[in-house]
């Protein structure tokens, strides 16, 4: 169970893992995520499913090395197993023919966007994808996104690849030149917040896929709660996708920092033990 069948590094700190999970591969839809526990002493972390292969019985996860658990995941070799993979969790993305859909992705947010863009395209939408990252090396899955998009716009902070600027610059250019019926955004909370502010200005309906702290992922603890339209919602069962114009991103960002100190200390310890930078 949960055997890693292939692995590839997209960039220094971003790895793709193809994991054996036949039941999940079969039942998952775009927008779904899984909870993973790397080993017996591990924590439960949420990861979005970026694609699946029903025949091979595998799902694909993309993980960015930012702390202990993601570092452990990136260090796993082909043939090794993950202690636990459970899912598919959350609500699937609501897919319909909206017209023109802009997919605004930041960094590793491109991975969870991939199945959504594909499903939107399959439903008859014109899909314009904006892939943004700090620098050229951090743009991932470009080829795969091109395959499911009518157009791909690349944005880098430093201008090392594509256009120089932020994801919002790319999205605004599209909105200014043609009618956009729906925007989907996945990336760091701060980026989704600014995409939401931008599209609100232009009255473009926008969905954000939220990435809060989670424990069980099945609605039993409320660690992932956010305020949407003044109401408390659990991201794991009510989401992860919400109307971006109604999400309290400031509260969400604050809550994401709940364990910042413990996480940093744990990661420093881990790096020391494993002789990593």
């Amino acid at each position, binding site marked *: 169970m949960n055997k890693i069948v292939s692995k590839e590094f997209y960039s220094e700190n971003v790895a793709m893992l193809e994991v054996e999970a036949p*039941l999940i591969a079969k039942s998952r839809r775009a927008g779904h995520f899984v909870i993973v526990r790397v080993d017996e002493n591990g924590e439960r972390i949420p990861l979005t499913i970026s694609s699946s292969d029903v025949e091979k019985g595998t799902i694909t996860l993309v993980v960015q090395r930012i702390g202990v658990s993601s570092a452990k995941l990136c260090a796993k070799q082909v043939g090794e197993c993950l202690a636990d993979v459970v899912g598919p969790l959350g609500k699937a993305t609501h897919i319909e023919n909206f017209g023109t859909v802009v997919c605004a992705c930041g960094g590793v947010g491109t991975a969870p966007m991939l199945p959504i863009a594909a499903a939107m395209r399959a439903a008859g939408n014109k899909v314009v994808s904006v892939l943004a990252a700090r620098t050229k090396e951090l743009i991932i899955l470009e080829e795969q996104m091109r395959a499911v998009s009518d157009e791909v716009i690349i944005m880098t902070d430093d201008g090392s690849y594509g256009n120089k600027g932020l994801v919002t610059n790319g999205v605004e250019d599209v909105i200014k030149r043609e009618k956009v019926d729906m925007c989907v955004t996945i990336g760091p909370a701060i980026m989704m917040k600014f995409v939401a502010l931008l599209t609100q200005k232009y009255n473009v309906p926008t969905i954000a896929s939220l990435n809060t702290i989670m*424990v069980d992922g*099945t609605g039993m603890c409320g660690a992932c709660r956010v305020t949407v339209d003044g109401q408390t919602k659990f991201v794991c069962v009510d989401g992860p996708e919400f109307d971006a114009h109604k999400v309290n991103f400031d509260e969400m960002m604050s809550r994401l920092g*709940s364990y910042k100190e*413990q996480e940093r200390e744990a990661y420093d310890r881990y790096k020391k033990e494993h002789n990593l930078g």
Partner: protein
Amino acid sequence: MELTDRNAAWREELRKSIKAKERSGFTRVAMNELDGEYRSHNSEEVNLGLTEEQALAESKRCLDCLNPGCITGCPVGIDIPAFIKNIERGHFADAAKVLKMTSSLPAVCGRVCPQEKQCESKCIHLKMGKPAVAIGYLERFAADYERKSGEASVPEIAAPKGKKIAVVGSGPAGLSFSGDMAKLGYDVTVFEALHEIGGVLKYGIPEFRLPNSIVDGEIANLEKMGVKFVKDCIIGKTLSFDDLKADGFEGVFVASGAGLPNFMGIKGENLIGVMSSNEYLTRVNLLGAAREDFDTPVLRGKRVAVIGGGNTAMDSVRTARRLGAETAMIVYRRSEEEMPARLEEVHHAKQEGVIFKTLHNPIEYYGDEKGRVKQMLLQNMELGEPDASGRRRPVPVEGATELVDVDLVIVSVGVSPNPLIPKSVNGLEVSKKGTIVVNEEMQSSIPTVFAGGDIVRGGATVILAMGDGRKAAAAMDEYLSGK
């Protein structure tokens, strides 16, 4: 059966050996426990159990009544006098056998059941103004004795029926149902969403009250009886009900519990440092957050407030003390008399230095510039007229509030049924509260689907869930046998 026959020669002899009057004159045994100050800094089990001498002495108090009231007080109907008399004659392993005839988890129930409200509340001694026989302690003694002896007996299993049954959830209701169905000869598979088997027994009830090794022991017994366990599998997500049908499961027992925590919806409740009991206890109990070699973190407060007065609140506040809280307080809107928690837990919490702020209710939390909770505003309450539940209603004392410093708040104001399962089955009748509607036989609106425990009751107790499991097993057997 020799072990349970009240008219067996050995048992008649025991009855004659000591006069009833003399038996009722013996003093009730006191459970040995760890010192309050010592144990509030570790996770060792607080209650130490009875010694053989203590168990023998306590067993002599039971009058072996002709019409034992205690049995009617037990939700799973354990033959209480029979197991106690087996202890009295020194046959401890036989006592465990008697327990296992009706209970799948005696070591668990002996520890966590509120016996004072169940079996022990019907003991004949109470009518004579004497303390009840310590049935819970004796149950625990017999179950522990068997486990320590390493010779756990496997109950008799009927010939295989060739019918597959699925159980959704591995908490007390699901485990009890599985044990009974396995005994009846069914091929039982339990599906669990989490990575550990046991439900609330693992993620909720702390180590100092119910060691996980005890739960694992009971689960191993079920495995010996042929019950299969599948973890990391969410029915309604990983596998649908249709998948179960296609896989040949002829009956489904839903025991998915009431895992959804309630929040109060007051200002500041989403600040950092405010969390549900479920989150707090899951991090510590299921994920080992307090242990150095585990990856899951947990916030440790110096001044911790737990909101609520149930067993979960007591478990949380006592856990907070063990994780280093200098001040750990219970904030409860009624008075101590109305607290739903077990008396023993309240007593233990006090011994461990927990402060009780009763007749107080939080109305707002305040945070610092980093969004971390630093204070709570409490409303003073008083008791008014009795409400629908028969308890006196707490009403605010106008203008009387106080500001209290806190750096961690655990909200423990109840749970609601998890909507995941009810929502994923077409045609399943669900109440307004989200519980699955069942008839007296625990059968839902879909004839092959039975349900029990908290998904039917809302938040209740371990033993009521187990009772439901037993009842559902008997009823499903009857239904599937076409009786």
